[in-house]
């Protein structure tokens, strides 16, 4: 059964190729069939393989062909299946499949229907390659492939100039991170002579002691790649703009899968980070700072999707935080839950935006809970999960685990914990701000048409998943279920809890629950009970509000420091200053020509003079020597 592994990425690839080559001649139904069907088949195979894997959970390697062979360096097209990639496979194919189904209705009116599915299929394929790759070079292929698809899909509605800009921004910013990652690969290659992941993980502990300089460098460089892809500080700026793409894209790429590739990378290479504690700490710090900054920004956004975008950044911050404290499986757990509820939220938001004639501003929505009950219900479930409403949501379990381990884990840290806690508070504030503003209060706009089944079904399924999946892993205090971490344990080591902290787990859960609920309360107070208050607060602190609103001004900073100088230099030097040297030579040559031509005066006596001068010069030379 596991031999079918290669089919998982192959189906979407085939789908993409068919749609690219023949998509423009296909009917919508056929295109849907190809687009969604191929991912469906992948999901099916994933399921089959998943069962096979559960019964025999040893890693499985599949070698397709040798990509390039130079001496002992032989990166291949080869897949490595273990628990980690299994979980990613599952999330990618299933969430991907649901989103494809959703898209078949969402994109129904679009000219580029087939093109959309082609890109989406290509994305799924690349993402699958990314998580299945058995060497870093192939991983890099998937890594860049998803980047390309992200670019294509952000700029899907290419007639808008700003969409194109957002798309390019996303590509270029992530490429900055990729550059760091590539350098990391160079070092790994130089040190170990291979980029095969499992070999690297085996050899690294032998080659490096804990805290080794090279390991540290590699760790930081890989982190660089991860922050680019996962929109973490300082490369987070592209993600809010990436919302220019269609909502299913935001759901699949910019929430559920691609942006978590950084998490995958770090988890995959966790051995290196364990050898480089400072780098790992940096991961945690990046996560903590990002989750706070993005949370504050989310508080001030008016665009529904931008709220979700900042929230995504913030939630991935949590995952990084978890990685940073060595809570590997907690990070992956949160990834999975987040994939469900964030996809759900984006899809819900997309449905709302669609029926409101592409209205993004949530303050122009309002009161939608009556008009769109299913969407309201599912959105609320997703929001509750995001806000980590205790006990009933998946988000609570996954986030609580991170909070707890941030404090209690061996590498835990009070500051990180506090940041995470405060972040949780902000999260629930902005989440329910969004819910209340969108679904409560007076109606400001008009719903054009009802939402069809193809869009609602995925919402419901995701709502169920985002609730139930949480019960795969329950803390000691609440049933102590460890299915998820057990499953991952062959790949990712479990985190050790500080012995002195064990007893306080319940206390911390209560704190987390209170914080989450109080956030909801605050949101309720501000946006339902006293709807005028927020704008007053806004006027009180216009500077801070603006700072948050523009995402802490990173865009402006980069614009001034990097983009403008680059464009300026490019503009100034458009005609290539080095060419001036050669044109200068030409000018000099012409000057010589004119000067010499002047001596050819045509007058005989002048010529005689020339001969005489020549003779004199020559005799002088003769006499001197």
């Amino acid at each position, binding site marked *: 059964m596991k031999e079918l592994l290669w089919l998982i990425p192959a189906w979407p690839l085939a789908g993409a190729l068919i749609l690219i080559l023949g998509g423009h001649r296909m009917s919508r139904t056929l295109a849907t069939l190809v687009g969604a069907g191929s991912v469906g088949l992948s999901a099916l195979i994933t399921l089959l393989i998943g069962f096979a894997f559960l019964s025999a959970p040893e890693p499985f390697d599949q070698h397709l062909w040798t990509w390039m062979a*130079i001496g002992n360096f032989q990166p291949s097209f080869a897949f490595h299946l273990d628990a980690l990639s299994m979980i990613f496979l599952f999330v990618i194919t299933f969430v991907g499949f649901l989103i494809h189904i959703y898209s078949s209705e969402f994109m129904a009116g679009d000219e580029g229907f087939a093109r959309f599915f082609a890109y989406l299929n290509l994305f799924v394929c690349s993402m699958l390659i990314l998580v299945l790759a058995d060497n870093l070079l192939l991983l890099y292929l998937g890594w860049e492939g998803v980047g390309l698809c992200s670019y294509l899909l952000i*700029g899907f509605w290419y007639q808008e100039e700003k969409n194109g800009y957002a798309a390019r921004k996303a590509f270029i910013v992530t490429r900055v991170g990729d550059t760091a990652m590539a350098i990391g690969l160079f070092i790994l290659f130089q040190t170990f002579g291979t980029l095969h992941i499992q070999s690297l993980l085996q050899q690294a502990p032998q080659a490096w002691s804990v805290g080794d300089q090279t390991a540290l460098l590699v760790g930081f460089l890989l982190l660089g790649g991860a922050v680019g892809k996962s929109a973490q500080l300082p490369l987070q700026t592209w993600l809010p703009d990436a919302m220019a793409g269609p909502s299913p894209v935001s759901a699949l790429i910019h929430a559920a899968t691609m942006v978590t590739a950084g998490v995958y990378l770090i988890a995959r290479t966790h051995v290196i980070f364990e050898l480089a504690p400072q780098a790992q700490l940096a991961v945690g710090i990046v996560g903590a700072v990002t989750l706070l900054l993005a949370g504050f920004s989310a508080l001030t956004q008016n665009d529904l999707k931008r709220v979700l975008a900042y929230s995504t950044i913030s939630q991935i911050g949590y995952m990084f935080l978890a990685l940073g404290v060595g809570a590997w499986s907690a990070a992956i757990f949160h990834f999975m839950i987040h994939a469900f509820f964030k996809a759900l939220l984006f899809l819900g938001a997309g449905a709302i935006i669609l029926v409101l004639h592409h209205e993004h501003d949530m303050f122009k929505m309002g009161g939608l809970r009556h008009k769109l009950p299913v969407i309201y219900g599912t959105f609320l479930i997703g929001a509750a999960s995001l806000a980590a409403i205790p006990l009933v949501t998946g988000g609570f379990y996954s986030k609580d685990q991170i909070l707890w381990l941030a404090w209690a884990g061996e590498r835990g840290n009070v500051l990180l914990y506090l940041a995470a806690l405060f972040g949780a508070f902000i999260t629930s504030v902005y989440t329910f701000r969004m819910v209340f503003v969108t679904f409560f209060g007076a109606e400001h706009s008009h719903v054009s048409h009802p939402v069809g089944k193809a869009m609602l079904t995925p919402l419901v399924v995701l709502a169920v998943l985002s609730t139930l999946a949480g019960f795969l892993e329950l803390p000691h205090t609440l049933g102590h279920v460890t299915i998820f971490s057990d499953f991952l344990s062959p790949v990712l080591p479990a985190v050790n809890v500080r012995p002195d902290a064990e007893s306080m787990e319940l206390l911390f859960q209560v704190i987390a629950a209170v914080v989450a609920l109080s956030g909801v309360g605050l949101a309720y107070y501000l946006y339902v009970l006293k709807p005028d208050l927020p704008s007053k607060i806004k006027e009180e602190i216009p500077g801070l509000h603006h700072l948050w609103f523009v995402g802490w001004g990173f865009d402006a900073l980069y614009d001034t420091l990097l983009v403008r100088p680059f464009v300026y230099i490019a503009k100034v030097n458009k005609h290539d200053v080095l060419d001036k040297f050669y044109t200068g030579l030409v000018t000099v040559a012409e000057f010589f020509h004119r000067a010499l031509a002047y001596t050819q005066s045509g007058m005989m006596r002048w010529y005689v003079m020339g001969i005489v001068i020549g003779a004199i010069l020559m005799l002088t030379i003769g006499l001197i020597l």
Partner: protein
Amino acid sequence: MILPALIIFLLAGGILAWSAEKINASYPKWIALAVLAIYLVVMGSLWSAENTTALTGGSWKVHFMKPWIPQFGVSFHLALDGLSLLMLLLTFFLGMAAVLISWKEIQNRVGFFYFNMLWVLAGISGVFLAMDLFLFYFFWEMMLIPMYFLIGIWGHENRRYAAYKFFIFTQASGLLMLLAVLGMYFVHGATAGEYTFDYFAWLGTPLSTQTGRWLMLGFLAAFIVKLPVVPFHSWLPDAHAEAPTAGSVILAGLLLKTGAYGLIRFVVPLFPEASHYFAPVLMGLGVLGILYGAILAFAQTDIKRLVAYTSVSHMGFVMLGVFAFNEVAMKGVVMQMITHGISTGALFILAGVLYERIHTRDINHMGGFWPQVPFMGTMGLVFAMASLGLPGLGNFVAEILTLLGAWQANHTLTILATVGLVAATAYSLRIVQKIFLGKPEHHYTLPDLSGREKLILVPLVVAIVWLGLFPQAVMQQVDQPAKAGTAQTQVTTSGLLVNQHVKGGEHDPK
């Protein structure tokens, strides 16, 4: 005999094409196409040819030698190994693309056009085959004249200026090489007692440090101008932009490669010591080219100039890789030569196709073409992605291998070169954006690619993808035979395996 026949038939084909014009104006292109197709097949059949035993060191498949000017020890010595074979395949492949793209573009003096084209290709083939330095120089110069005519007669508005510039730059640098060739001739003759221009005889000639360096600089001059390396690149944008499409394809796809080929075949093996001495500077120049070319490419509004500057940028990788002195980088360079030929050739073809339709090369007059020409847009996208080094396409393999190898030699420069990839992203995406995306503000009637144009571009796409996924098939052509002779012959044959002993240490990253 197959090697001299190759060149002779190309020359004869050129003359035939020229004279056939009088009978029917469409004959020349068919003749040109046929000649190239035949040779593509012939070269393809050599793909898995056995190695000849006539030459030792390296894996030489075919070999031909006849005395030519015995007084000087000049012989008509041609030999083909994997590297040459790859280059020749590229030559004929792109040559066919160039013929096909000129099918309708060239309307006047058709016969003379194809005459020149075949003669350029003959010169290029000669460069890739010559194993006698006199002969090499002979071909090196011979390919310039027809190229000059191609630019000067069928080029765009500013063609005369561009043609002069191209000719004078390459000629000037070529003469410096001639001096070095002669210097080497006498140095070798004085030590070996036998005056000859034969490449194999020259390998391993002991040179004093000073002499070696000066001679190497002479060779280098020709190759880095051709490559081109900043700051000797300024002929290139003009020549590429003003040449007719086929001319640009040949220039970018093939002529630049002769520079890279020269570095690999001659500079490194003949002057190992001097190469090591100058390596940091040369790698630095390569990186400078990568970044400088990218910045300039970003600023251009003329699509052909833009693509031309991307060539400057991409060829920087060649310098970086060649002088990193390890097999990984060297294979990356070989891949870069091939993939850059294909991807940049394709971009020029697209530029030509667009120019044929809208009669401008200014990207500010373009935009929003996608709905009208989705197929062309897809092609443009693929090659823009190739240009920015997207994995899965050939250019990625080339660049990553080059960088992996270069890292072993110099960390700082490799980091800077890697940064160049970001800049490459910027200009590549700009191409796509400015031409195909955005709002259609200019109203052109813009038919999508015709069957003939698809016939050109689809094989190029297939090739670039194939190279991206299965580069091994190509790279093993430049593998050294497993049981190569002594270390000395390995060092000296084709530069692909370079002695490790000179600079092996200093691996610690800071």
